[in-house]
């Protein structure tokens, strides 16, 4: 009986349970400290979307080019992209990487909004 090929597993960085939890928060903090505007995150997500369906090697090279060409003025953003590009090992990592940056932009925007709205709560949301 023919056996099915083993399903490709994501690389360890993409299988990390905290990929979209604590790691995500730390990355948002880095970007915030470097004063990377939210618009850059949104633009990044838009650019990465084009990579869906591409092979890991191709996506990795493309992201590195993207980092230097489009985000050169925001070194923190460029460094983050290059870091993740070098972690792409298998094709299943590509959509996970996109998902990570998508969440990065969404969570960052939501947190910004909640901080603003906290002022509407008693004690500025520290109650």
């Amino acid at each position, binding site marked *: 009986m023919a056996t099915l090929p083993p399903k490709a597993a994501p690389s360890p960085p993409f299988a990390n349970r905290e990929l979209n*939890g604590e790691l995500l928060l730390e990355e948002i903090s880095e970007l915030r400290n470097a004063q990377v*505007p939210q*618009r850059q995150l*949104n633009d990044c997500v838009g650019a990465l979307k084009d990579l869906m369906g591409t092979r890991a090697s191709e996506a990795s090279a493309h992201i590195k080019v993207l980092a230097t060409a489009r985000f050169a003025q925001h070194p923190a953003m460029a460094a983050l992209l290059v870091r993740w590009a070098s972690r792409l090992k298998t094709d299943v990592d590509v959509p996970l990487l996109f998902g990570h940056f998508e969440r990065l932009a969404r969570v960052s925007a939501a947190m910004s909004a909640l*901080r603003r*709205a906290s002022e509407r*709560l008693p004690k500025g*949301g520290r109650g």
Partner: protein
Amino acid sequence: MKAKAVAGYDLVSAEASSRLDVWPERSKHLFTELLEDAANDMQRELLNRAVAAGHSAAEVHAFADALRGLSDVEAFEKCTIGLDSAPGYTVAQVLKAEADPLFAFTLRGGDISPAEERPRASDALPYVPPPSSPRSDGRKFDEMTDPKVRVQRSGGFDVRDDGALKRAAAAAARELGASIDAVPRPSTGPSAAVPSPSSGPAIVQDVLNDAMHALGIAYREQGVDGAGQAKLEDVMAQVAQALQRGLPVPVALGPDPGKDRRFALFLQVQTSGKSRAYQLYDVLSQEVAWLNEGDLFARTELPFASKANRRITRIALPVIKGS
């Protein structure tokens, strides 16, 4: 990584400085935050000029919000007018617009909605009819860590574990988003709060939808567990569905229904059989914790340092097309 220098009052012209001198400390702090949040030097310059023109802190705040989503070209285009391009304007208007970008912005049809009074939380909360989803009880997790021990890594958590793990996020560096001193601005237009029959004003929906608009996401806010409101058990299935789609879910925490005290954000969900565990992040205290759905439904305690806020009082659910 070395952070860039924060823009501050050094960029403010003498005239703007003199205007700022008479602002209350709170407004000065807000303005500093707005300068920090501005996308670039051009936007900072526009804000400085708006201050110099004598606009109030609330107007400048609304102006900053309107500018933030614009590109350089768009911002410049919307904040300047010329007689050749707009012969309908009077010379006086053109001269005033040259000195006052906020005036030019409004003259060119820009909409700002400065808030003079902050909307407050109301006991009468919005009601959105709940879906008819079954209650999904998770297994009870025991507390593993003392809430005072907030630096422990949460590497060993599994949704099947009999314990909820928690830790504070890497503390001070996790500053994000706008100032807590920023004066909120109720929006008009598509992102404005949508009151429902039994509701008062929403607290976060307008600001949230402003922030998420560029990402194509909209939220609808609702109180939970209050009179005439959905039960928490009824909406958590939607929360899980949103998280599985990569959409964070903002919530308010408090001691009792209708008493919203803090904001937190559901980041992700893990499921194992019928059991669900959620990762929740307190935006201001920067604590992050995994908690079991059963603990959430018990409404007795949340795994954060502030024990008074023991339940979810309000949820902003993403409006998902087709759901």
